[in-house]
């Protein structure tokens, strides 16, 4: 049994089935991402002043990924055009480049951009403790700047961020064994604080915010303070350089800051629970990443010399061209989503 119009277009609609199908699918995808983007707008408009971060992402890396995706959009069209002209070698080349571009995009995202955030520490300071951390926040400087006429408004600063260096804890001696096992497992060291015998300082190169969180959940353990290598904005809050986001991403400085746990509203790595910003960032880029992965896998399927893939060229080249056209439409949509994702997270 052969379904009609699988390869040839139906005369009155001018479409073969899959082409109509993919456009319908993309219409629903627009609504899916539309739901997430409207979530972004809703959360951003509802965010209190200072609670929507700017300039946390690496713009050059994001721009490079954007360029890679746009390039792959061009090559996937060339792959389709090659098939239409029945040039098999050119098809393999262009499709191969498209697959490679998609893979590079994913690798950059998963091996570089995301892991960096999992290890970055941020702590929102309670409103009544903001004054205490003025040297790291510089809110007086912000106020003065905002009084200047014609000046772009700077949001008040409520968060201190950087690389977690060490944490101070108090521990119940009765639960000492569990703590030691934990420290051993994570290759951390504990030493007694000089001024206060009850305090222990935990440090080690594997002390990520996630490990600190697990540590704080151990029985009898209470977090007292964090020490971190400050991000530039907290290291030099009064510097005019800190007033606006930068094109070139700057990592944490050498300068160390200390935050008392009791002054902290909430703290975590730059993960979804950190703030609605990172929640929507990870959800949208994650869902987009899944789409990129799906696109790469499907293109790979059409590229490999298998039944239903590149081997179809000998039997029914027009059918293969149609398949590539359909995955190309999907791929363009995935690019288009990224064209929206890049400015709203990296630039705005």
């Amino acid at each position, binding site marked *: *049994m052969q379904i*009609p119009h699988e390869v040839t277009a139906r005369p009155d609609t001018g479409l073969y089935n899959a082409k109509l199908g993919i456009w319908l699918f993309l219409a629903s995808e627009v609504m899916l991402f539309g739901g997430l983007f409207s979530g972004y707008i809703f959360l951003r408009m509802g965010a209190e002043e200072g609670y929507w971060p700017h300039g946390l992402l690496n713009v050059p890396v994001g721009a490079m990924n954007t360029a890679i995706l746009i390039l792959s959009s061009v090559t996937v069209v060339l792959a389709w055009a090659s098939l239409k002209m029945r040039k098999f070698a050119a098809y393999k080349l262009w499709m191969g480049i498209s697959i490679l571009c998609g893979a590079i995009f994913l690798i950059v995202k998963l091996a570089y951009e995301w892991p960096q955030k999992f290890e970055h520490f941020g702590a929102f300071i309670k409103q009544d403790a903001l004054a205490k951390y003025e040297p790291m926040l510089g809110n007086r400087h912000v106020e003065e700047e905002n009084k200047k006429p014609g000046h772009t408004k700077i949001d008040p600063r409520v968060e201190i961020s950087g690389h977690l260096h060490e944490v101070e804890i108090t521990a119940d001696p009765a639960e000492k064994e569990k703590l030691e096992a934990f420290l051993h497992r994570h290759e951390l060291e504990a030493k007694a604080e000089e001024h206060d015998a009850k305090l222990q300082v935990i440090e080690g190169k594997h002390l990520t915010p996630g490990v600190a969180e697990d540590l704080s959940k151990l029985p009898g353990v209470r977090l007292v303070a964090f020490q971190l290598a400050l991000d530039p904005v907290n290291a030099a809050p009064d510097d005019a350089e800190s007033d606006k986001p930068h094109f070139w991403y700057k990592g944490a400085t050498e300068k160390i800051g200390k935050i008392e746990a009791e002054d902290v509203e909430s703290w975590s790595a730059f993960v979804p629970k950190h703030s609605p910003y990172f929640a929507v960032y990870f959800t949208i880029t994650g869902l987009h990443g899944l789409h990129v992965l799906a696109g790469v896998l499907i293109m790979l399927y059409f590229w490999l010399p298998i039944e239903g893939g590149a081997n179809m060229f000998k039997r029914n080249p027009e059918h293969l061209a149609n398949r590539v056209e359909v995955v190309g439409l999907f791929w363009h949509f995935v690019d288009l989503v990224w064209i929206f994702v890049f400015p709203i997270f990296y630039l705005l």
Partner: protein
Amino acid sequence: MSTAATTHAPDDHAHAHDDHHYDPGFWRKWVFSTDHKMIGIQYGTTGLAFLFAGFCLMMIMRWQLAHPGDAVPVIGGLLQAIFGSAAFQTDAHGHAGMLTADGYNAFGAMHGTIMVFFGIVPVAFAAFGNFVVPLQIGAIDMTFPKINMASFWCFFISCIFMVVSFFVPGGAMKSGWTAYPPLSIMADAGPLNHFIMNGQTLWGLGMVFNITASLLGSVNFIATIIQLRAPGMTWMRLPFFVWAQFVTAFLLLLAFPPLESAAVMQIMDRAFGSSFFMPTGLVVGGHPAHWSGGGSPILWQHLFWFLAHPEVYVLILPGIGMVAEVIANNTRKPLYGYKAMVGAILVLGFLSFIVWAHHMYMTGMGAKVAGFFQVTTIMISVPSVILVTALMLSLWGGSIRFTVPMLFATAFLPMFGIGGLTGIPLAFNAVDLYLHDTYYIIGHFHYVVAPGTIFAIFAGVYHWYPKATGRMLNEFLGKMHFWLSLIFINGVFFPMFLQGMAGVHRRWYDGGATYEQLITPVIHWNNFMSVSAFLLGAAQLPFIVNFFWSLVAGRKASDNPWDATTVEWDTPTPPPHGNFIKDISVHRGPYEYSVPGADKDFTPQTEAPKSDRPPGVGVAGPIATHPH
């Protein structure tokens, strides 16, 4: 549009009828089938089973409402053994099986979810759409048979999630079928609960799969209707049921994805501690909640209702389509105002996307926004009234055959009318503020969906059962099923209006016993409604018996037992793989009944015009003048 008669390309056509020896084997035929009829039957049986399960949940809740604090009689111990101590406890008399408050909330939430997403939509849209639409347009299958199979199995996975969620620690989700945060984020969350295996998270995952299934289905439906119409099947020759499914598929395609994104956000909030829907400064039980805050509970409501309002039309439009088919067939005359009905259903589909916030008047949205949604809500009643009025007028002057499907279809009209008309006051902000979350709302939408859509589904089952199985359903049992259902379903739902206007709240799990002084004049209805519900359950027994007994012992059905005109009756009964044993071409509109001068009172769409007169000339009736 009228030039849509197609010429198949030669390479497509040659293969159309070459599988007389089609034998896919047991698994590919009955389980992993790509045949649209089998997928329709799979969707139908699964959906009917869920409808029954959802009904049983409701009966247990109705026992609790009428006899708060008493254990469920007879099966109470069994229920407690199955659902565990979160949902059932031992009552004051020492009998096991008293529904707890948590259990009541879980059953209520799951009743709504199951009835809407796992009962009505799979049966009315997926089952009937899959089985009937390709047959009615003269197609050999859906455009994408494998995707069709994937749709059903995706749906099946979502069913597993929902069923399993009853049996995880804490029980099924408890935050209402609308899953409003912050309750839906906090319930069964936290260190004592597994981050996936809890009722609410499983609900979210189940919805993601359910929505994916409906996406795959709706792409298939639209593509099939556009691409696979038989030669001569122009747009204005489509049976009205196909139009209804076409619009419904667009609603599912475009309205469901925002809920999918919302479900993903909810899972993120629950499993990864994000704050999409959790506001700043939330205090729970005297302690600050451990979410970072900054989110918005209203965001969920917008995303949810952006789906869930079009969803109402997803529930009702296939029903209206089925009723239209049954009415045209049994009045033996064309539908009144076919063109107006098509126009109305398209307008209705569009408007359904811009009325959603009338579910959210209580959020304090401000007069201007409320004003907009009041106006659109009133506007949408116009096409709805056109549809129902056209169906009523179709009865006028017909020589009606009161077959069992026709009884259900006729009863649908006033029942849906009650549901629709009681909705008009709710469109107004001021009235809604009073009636919001009362039993008036419950009565209103249940009249639309229960004696509305479910009656339409029954009409469809009795109408198309012979085509699917080759045997007729028993007429006497069918009539018994109809009359008892009609009486008792009104007994269940009509008193809800009285209770609701007196202020009875939909979430009181003791039936209002705590607030008895406030609702004294109406609280006695609880007992009446519950008894009606149990009798309604008993009234389904003739149907269940009929359904299975007729499979083996029903009267053998001919290919066209109802003397119908539409193309699905032009197949062998039951239709083989590939559906048609001859080439199908369509020559006339869908409802050429009682055409003056014709030799019988129905003229099938596939019947070629007599050679002595050109097509479309000398044939009376409003449809015969198409296409133009």
